[in-house]
């Protein structure tokens, strides 16, 4: 093998998956398992008058009915400790857990759920951002002041229904507006988006020897450990989390879900307990991408310069704060970047409503922020009658660009290369021509999540390499391909001779989870750190076996050989076997965390996520056709140019681009998860919530722009998350171009398209 990095090596977990042998979290069973189901609040807001569990408890096969009385009296959360396990006095959203039933079978548990009688005095829900922010609006949590930030996090501005506010105002923005030739103002609205991973959420727990073991398919087992520990009021080391194959996640499996419930129930009934959501429960309770309202106003000069901007964004976190108080930091990285805007003010708020708590979904908040920014960019160009592409290039950032948090992007000029690459593949002048056709472009930067990782490498006596890591394989191939290939190259062996563990928090060092494209970059780098240590040991042991000095031997092709004498060599198996009784097993570890980029903390207040580490650069272009009779949109062509640092497995990266764009097309055109005035979701099944099918998605063309990163393994940066970010914007701009009307909502429905066409006819 002359190195597998940079080659498309088929992933080893594909075989068990195509055979149907792979055991996912939902397939996993322990002997003697009991099954549980949750009683979920049927109403979005109200006071619990009473819970009668007697009828349910009397059902055949029922082992226990559990309520808040049986759970620790604690609130916890990702950022703010505001969420109890079970609602006790009040319910705050439809779907909030009120009780749990444990029974001999899943059927019996689900049947008994309907026998738990919950008496709730309903109150009118705070069902929308507008309602929550109205003067004198009812408070979603009257006791909001008693909620404390999680230990270690400083307080931030919050007040009533506004659970977080981030403000960045450098001063002088109003003066800059006063000097502008034109001021353009837009309002954009985005619905929620459900992750709709194919494997519904589940958890299986067992309580033994005063410890909880939880079997999961989860993106972030270490977070399950710490969040479950805090929900139950025990030390994290009392919790062990073991990962299994995972049927997608896209962010929805980053926070805890069913795990603390399964753990609590397992202790109460002293038996293994499995909790599984059916699809409608999963959809109802899932921390979907938040709905949001964005108001954006910019001052532009006749020569095409943008001179001033105000960017206001309200994000709906639902009934609990979850991670949204972090997400309100993201606008500061996007509102003044990609295009230079010298004077920008940003205010973003996370807002409580009586709806399901929202949370992470691939491209967190970036999807609608980019939609707003890039739709607005088109409007700015059109206002001064400048070509939309030319306007973008005119304002594009360059090397040394300063973001609004004061962070400097030394290599931002790569964006110009990305625009040029798009032009080479899909010339602007040729796209979107013909009746009812349009073209749209969108560009963005995105981060690589910096959370730490750790790897132990061990060379086995048969020459295989064990990679012991807590990294989770979410489906992207970051572990199955990226980490494995990087590890193989450390010893010059075939990736098929590399064995990677599944996550187990008792066994491996902390891992920051399958999030923000971090795994290949961070865990891959930890592999390289460990590899340095292991290679040193292998060289020493090999030299001893060959009767040479360490400096005179080298590792390659699965052997240690004498430099310049390739036929004097020993296999890695021989080296490991001999070393075992000479010096002990050959094992080395490596850890890595991204250094925090320099930034200026005085640029903003309430900035809980202060930097945008290891940024990557992206340009997308879409060509669409709209049907003037039905309003249906066909995506004719979609091209992505993505800066990736280094593609460890090019086909793997392309697969992430194709999948991310498909999710983005769903977001742009079909997938609205809407809240009615009654505070309930309108879409409640996979039939009503429309995910793109094979007929909806074109062949996405991808160009990988390699531009190695100093810190990344072989130069790799994050790649899997960002392809979803600019899609709604590129498609929205193309539809606006095709129709000549305003496109200001996500999803863009056929009615919106027909309205846009009608608006154009009136003008």
């Amino acid at each position, binding site marked *: 093998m002359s190195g597998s990095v940079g080659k498309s090596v088929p992933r080893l977990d594909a075989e068990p998956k195509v055979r149907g042998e792979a055991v*996912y979290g939902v397939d996993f069973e322990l002997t003697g398992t009991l099954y549980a189901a949750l009683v979920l609040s049927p109403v979005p807001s109200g006071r619990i008058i009473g819970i009668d569990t007697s009828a349910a408890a009397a059902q055949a096969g029922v082992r226990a009915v559990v309520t808040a009385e049986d759970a620790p009296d604690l609130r916890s959360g990702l950022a703010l400790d505001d969420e109890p396990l079970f609602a006790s006095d009040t319910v705050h959203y439809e779907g909030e857990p009120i009780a749990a039933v444990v029974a001999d079978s899943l059927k019996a548990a689900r049947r008994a759920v309907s026998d738990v009688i919950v008496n709730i005095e309903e109150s009118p829900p705070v069902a929308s951002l507008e309602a929550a922010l109205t003067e004198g609006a009812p408070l979603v949590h009257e006791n909001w002041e008693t909620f404390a930030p999680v230990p270690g996090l400083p307080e931030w501005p919050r007040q009533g229904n506004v659970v977080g506010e981030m403000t960045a105002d450098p001063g002088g923005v109003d003066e800059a507006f006063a000097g502008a030739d034109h001021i353009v103002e837009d309002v954009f609205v985005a619905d929620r988006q459900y992750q709709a991973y194919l494997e519904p959420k589940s958890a299986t727990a067992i309580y033994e020897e005063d410890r909880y073991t939880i079997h999961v398919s989860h993106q972030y087992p270490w977070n399950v450990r710490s969040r479950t520990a805090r929900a139950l009021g025990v030390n994290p080391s009392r919790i062990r989390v073991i990962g299994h194959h995972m049927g997608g996640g896209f962010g929805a499996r980053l926070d805890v879900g069913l795990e603390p419930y399964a753990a609590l129930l397992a202790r109460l009934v002293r038996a293994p307990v499995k909790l599984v959501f059916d699809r409608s429960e999963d959809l109802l309770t899932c921390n979907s991408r938040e709905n949001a309202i964005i108001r954006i106003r910019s001052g532009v000069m006749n020569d095409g310069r943008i001179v001033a901007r105000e960017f206001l964004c309200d994000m709906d976190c639902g009934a609990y704060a979850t991670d949204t108080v972090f997400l309100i930091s993201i606008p500061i990285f996007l509102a003044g970047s990609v295009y230079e805007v010298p004077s920008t003010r940003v205010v973003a708020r996370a807002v409580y409503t009586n709806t399901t708590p929202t949370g992470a979904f691939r491209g967190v908040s970036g999807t609608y922020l980019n939609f707003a920014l890039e739709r607005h960019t088109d409007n700015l160009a059109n206002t001064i009658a400048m070509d939309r592409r030319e306007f973008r290039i005119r304002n594009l950032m360059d090397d040394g660009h300063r973001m609004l948090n004061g962070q400097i992007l030394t290599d931002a000029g790569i964006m110009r290369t990305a625009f040029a690459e798009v032009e080479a593949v899909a010339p602007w002048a040729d796209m979107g021509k013909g009746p009812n056709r349009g073209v749209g472009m969108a560009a963005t930067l995105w981060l690589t999540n910096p959370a730490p990782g750790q790897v132990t490498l061990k060379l086995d006596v048969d020459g295989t390499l064990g990679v012991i890591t807590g990294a989770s394989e979410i489906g992207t191939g970051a572990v199955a391909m990226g980490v494995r290939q990087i590890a193989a190259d450390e010893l010059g062996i075939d990736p098929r001779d590399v064995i990677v563990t599944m996550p187990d928090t008792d066994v491996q060092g902390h891992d920051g989870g399958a999030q923000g494209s971090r795994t290949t970059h961070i865990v891959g780098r930890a592999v390289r750190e460990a590899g340095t240590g292991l290679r040193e040991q292998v060289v020493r042991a090999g030299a001893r076996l060959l009767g040479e000095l360490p400096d005179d031997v080298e590792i390659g092709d699965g052997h240690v050989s004498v430099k310049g004498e390739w036929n004097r060599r020993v296999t890695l198996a021989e080296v490991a076997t001999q070393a075992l009784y000479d010096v002990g097993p050959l094992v080395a570890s490596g850890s890595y965390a991204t250094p925090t980029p320099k930034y200026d903390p005085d640029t903003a207040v309430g900035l809980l996520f202060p930097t945008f580490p290891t940024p990557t650069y992206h340009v997308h272009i879409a060509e669409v056709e709209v049907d003037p009779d039905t309003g249906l949109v066909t995506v004719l062509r979609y091209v992505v140019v993505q800066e990736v640092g280094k593609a460890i497995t090019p086909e793997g990266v392309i*697969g992430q681009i194709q999948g991310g764009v498909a999710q983005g097309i769903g977001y742009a055109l079909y997938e609205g998860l809407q809240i009615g005035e009654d505070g309930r979701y309108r879409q409640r099944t996979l039939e009503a919530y429309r995910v793109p099918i094979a007929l909806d998605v074109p062949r996405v063309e991808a160009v990988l722009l390699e531009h190695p990163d100093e810190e990344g393994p072989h130069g790799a940066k994050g790649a899997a998350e960002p392809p979803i970010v600019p899609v709604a914007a590129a498609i929205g701009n193309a539809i606006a171009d095709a129709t000549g009307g305003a496109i200001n909502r996500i999803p863009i429905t056929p009615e919106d398209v027909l309205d846009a066409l009608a608006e154009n006819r009136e003008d």
Partner: protein
Amino acid sequence: MSAEFSMTVNGRTVTVDVAADETLLHVLRDELLLTGAKEGCDEGECGACTVLVDGKPVDSCIYPAPAAAGRTVSTIEGLVGSDGSLTPIQRAFVDGFAVQCGFCTPGFVMTLTALIEENSKPTERDIREALSGNLCRCTGYSTIIDAVLTATEERS
């Protein structure tokens, strides 16, 4: 009300005794421990539970188990040869990066196995239409479609 009946599953005759309203998916997964067919929705929308009944793909989550009495059921576990070899479709999925999380994969493989039984040279359009009942949230479908085109090219 329970129902006792026999069916042929992956070439073996099995007799089961289950509730009359039980679905084929639950019988396969919970009684016969064939967990290759997945439950993605239990409402006939996602196709993760697709198996073949008398060669035709069905959503086993909404297929009443007793309706399979006397019929031939094939699941993903029954596709591989006795030597463990993969079918051309399975092989093309592996080699063509058509598997990401893989939770949808058994359903796709079963639907496509039935498709190429009927139509050994499907066009891209045929494939996309045949797949209209199978959701994949990870891949964006292109690699899956290419895998079928590769497998059918190599077959003929």
